[in-house]
């Protein structure tokens, strides 16, 4: 693509704007929808990084499953949906400080990484160097790694998922009783 910059900026603006909407909108259902938009544009950024499988998985899991779970959870809360909710509490100042610090830390990290990479290559933006380091057919190589080098983590994931499922069922049954 000749102009990944434009696409990147569109996606970045959409991501950040929708993320801000998630924490500021008054209607909790609108917050969930803004979160879906945010996750979807993050998937777009994954594609810019050549991680197409990750992008598809992001949409399939976060939009297709987690977001629906969240909407169902909203439906579970009694009448919270109809009321405008307060999005902040007395800890708003602490939260601001922490998030500004975190943001600054991330920016510093990106800046330093950028320096380290730009010294070798001629590219402009920090994320362009990351492109091309992934193999072209990333699904196959991902599968290869999962099945051989990272076999144990892969099997542990299934145990984790099992624990999550049993936990969910136990909690849900307790709620019913």
């Amino acid at each position, binding site marked *: *693509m*000749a*102009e990944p910059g434009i696409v990147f900026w569109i996606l970045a603006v959409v991501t950040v704007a929708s993320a801000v909407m998630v924490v500021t909108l008054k*209607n909790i*259902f*609108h917050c969930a*929808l803004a979160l*879906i938009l945010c996750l979807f544009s993050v998937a777009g950024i994954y594609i810019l990084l050549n991680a*197409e*499988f990750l*992008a*598809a*998985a992001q*949409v*399939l899991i976060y*939009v*297709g*499953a987690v*977001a*629906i779970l969240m*909407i*169902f959870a909203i*439906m579970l809360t009694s009448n919270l949906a109809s009321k405008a909710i307060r999005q902040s509490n007395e800890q708003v100042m602490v939260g601001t400080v922490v998030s500004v610090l975190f943001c600054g830390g991330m920016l510093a990290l990106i800046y330093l990484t950028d320096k380290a990479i730009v010294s070798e290559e001629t590219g402009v933006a920090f994320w362009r160097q990351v492109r091309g380091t992934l193999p072209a*057919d*990333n*699904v*196959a190589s991902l599968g290869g790694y999962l099945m051989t080098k990272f076999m144990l983590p892969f099997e542990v994931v299934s145990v984790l998922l099992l624990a999550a499922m049993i936990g969910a069922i136990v909690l849900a049954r307790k709620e019913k009783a």
Partner: protein
Amino acid sequence: MNLIPIVAVELQPIFAWIYRWLEGLGLQGTLLTVVVYAGLGVMVFGVLAVLALFLVWWERKIAGHMQQRFGPMRNGWHGWYQTMMDGLKLLQKEDVLVDTRDKVVFFWAPVICFVAAFLAYVVMPFGDGLIVADLNVGILYIMAVTTFTVISLLMAGWGSNNKYALLGGMRSAAQVVSYEVPMVASILTVILFTGSLSMVDIVESQSGLVFNWFVFRLPFGPVAFMIYITAATAEANRTPFDIPEAEQELVAGFNVEYSGMKFAMFFLAEFVNMFTVSAIAVTLFFGGWQGWEFIPSWIWFLGKTFMVVLLLMLFRWTYPRLRVDQLMEFAWKILIPIAFVNLIVAGWMKYAGWYW
């Protein structure tokens, strides 16, 4: 008649010609790509609109004849332009807006519903080389973008602020997510043999004789296809899985408050989705656009897809609707175990080489 040369000629040279013409206009690089894709988008929309109009008419005719009626007969030969008239009528209908609706959500739900259905056609291989973009993650991409349909139905239910609509949207979401797991498991059975997620690779790995089609890959091919077609019927919200819009209990489900063009978008998306799931079935199990050379590949594709669509239509007018509890328990207790056992059997057969 002019029809014969149009049908006989392959479409690819036309696209190549248009591309060269655009280049001649002085468009370059990214801009050319953007213009080409936008043009293809409009073209795909045109094709889908015509297909949906045809499918609605066809469904009404089939329903009519199965119930010993004629179906639409008034507009043209056997009512062939009845659905166009319906479309024009919907265009002129007043948009009744409920006062208590959630304005933003109500407005965007039909848009997202249609765009989600539309996006699947980026990777749909209509014919040999007739594909908008052959993505590496093709089939996974389709599974991912079509999940937005569920979101849009939930949005429609919520935005209407109507009890029937919200219940319809919730049921629809619960149903679609439940049937997505067996659907993906049956798709994985095919991917085991292609070793690629790209739609073109999937089609090309079934080249040659009819017996290379995955549906004939005994013993797991037919099972995978049956699981797929069951789950696909549920994904497209069609009878016997049309609980979300069950007329008798939920009037029209999620779209009860929609009228005019907004309703038309849901209706269009529903038929586009039906065509999508059939086209995926053809791509995965029936060799896609492959067939005898003397018929253009896109006619093979459309013909095969219409056969699968016909199957879905016969389902609809043959079987009664399932109850909500039967529907969910069928997905989780029967379909999912069978689908995964089938997947493992297919894996073993692939390893042992016990297949054609």
